């Protein structure tokens, strides 16, 4: 199979694998009451899973981030979280700082 066709199939497979979880979630939601214990459990699992994914994106990243140094990524993350807290939850300042800081540190260190 040539690469072009394989890429198209990979996109189809990736989209199916992703939509399955979303669609099953939508179907299951019909039976879940927002005031139930089950809903609460899913809520905490969702936040915890997301936190786990974010930690993985910083510590064991896929893609271009993997070529930067892990200690630099963690320092940048901590600096930006502190900025977020001291700027009273401004989101622009820490995110813009993160981009410039990590670019600069990766380029010069």
């Amino acid at each position, binding site marked *: 199979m040539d690469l072009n066709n394989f890429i198209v199939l990979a996109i189809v497979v990736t989209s199916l694998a992703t939509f399955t979880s979303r669609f099953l979630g939508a179907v299951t939601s019909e039976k879940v009451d927002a005031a139930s214990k089950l809903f609460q459990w899913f809520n905490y699992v969702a936040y915890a899973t997301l936190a*786990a994914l974010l930690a993985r994106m910083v510590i064991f990243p896929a893609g271009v981030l993997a070529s930067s140094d892990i200690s630099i990524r963690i320092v940048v993350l901590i600096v930006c979280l502190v900025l977020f807290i001291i700027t009273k939850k401004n989101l622009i300042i820490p995110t813009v700082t993160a*981009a410039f800081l990590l670019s600069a540190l990766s380029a010069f260190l």
Partner: protein
Amino acid sequence: MINRKIFFQGLKALKGSRSPAIPLAACFIALGALLKDAGFNLQQSIASSFFTYALPGQLVMAESLLVGASLLNIFLAVWLVNFRLYPMTISLFPLLKHKSQPKWKYYLSCHFLAISSWLIAKDTYKKVERKYRIDFWIGIGIGTWTTAVVTTVLGYLAADYLNKDMMIGLAIVNPVYFFCMMIGAMNNLKMATAVIGGVILSPIFFILSAEWAILYAGLTAGTVAFLFGGKNGFK
């Protein structure tokens, strides 16, 4: 069919200082450039963001292609990294349910579920009357999804002008933004237990099993938070 006023109210979530457009743009520009490097043409890159619209899964797909993985392997790897969308959908859609709304709205709009849209919706759904919440969600979803597709194109076209250090800078914006949003959502002990537990367990489980780490960490930390993390106060 769709309440236009409420829909635009959702769409407007893209504006302002808490806008998810910034991290979305940064990471999908980086993704567009990465897909070009991986051998995708422009149409394939657009199709990937249009139909998948889930960055971690798209990254896994690109990496799997580069190492020559089979389609079955790609399916399993993407399914595992994107399975988080299942609990995320269940922790949002019951809040948007209303008996007067048709089911197709829920079945189609679940495609818009991603970290950015989910966090925004969890943060703001209470401002909208229950009956129209699904229209509000569709507004948020269309806005974030379109941003992702358009910036994938921009990244693809800009790939030759972005050096590696600039790409690294773009790629960190996404996790930093979402970590900030998560800290903002940690408004009680249970939430803090879930989030901090997930962060700590994820790298530990990753060493044991890279594919299953996110799922195991999420299930464990979420269940611990649910059972033991102090009293009440879920959001």
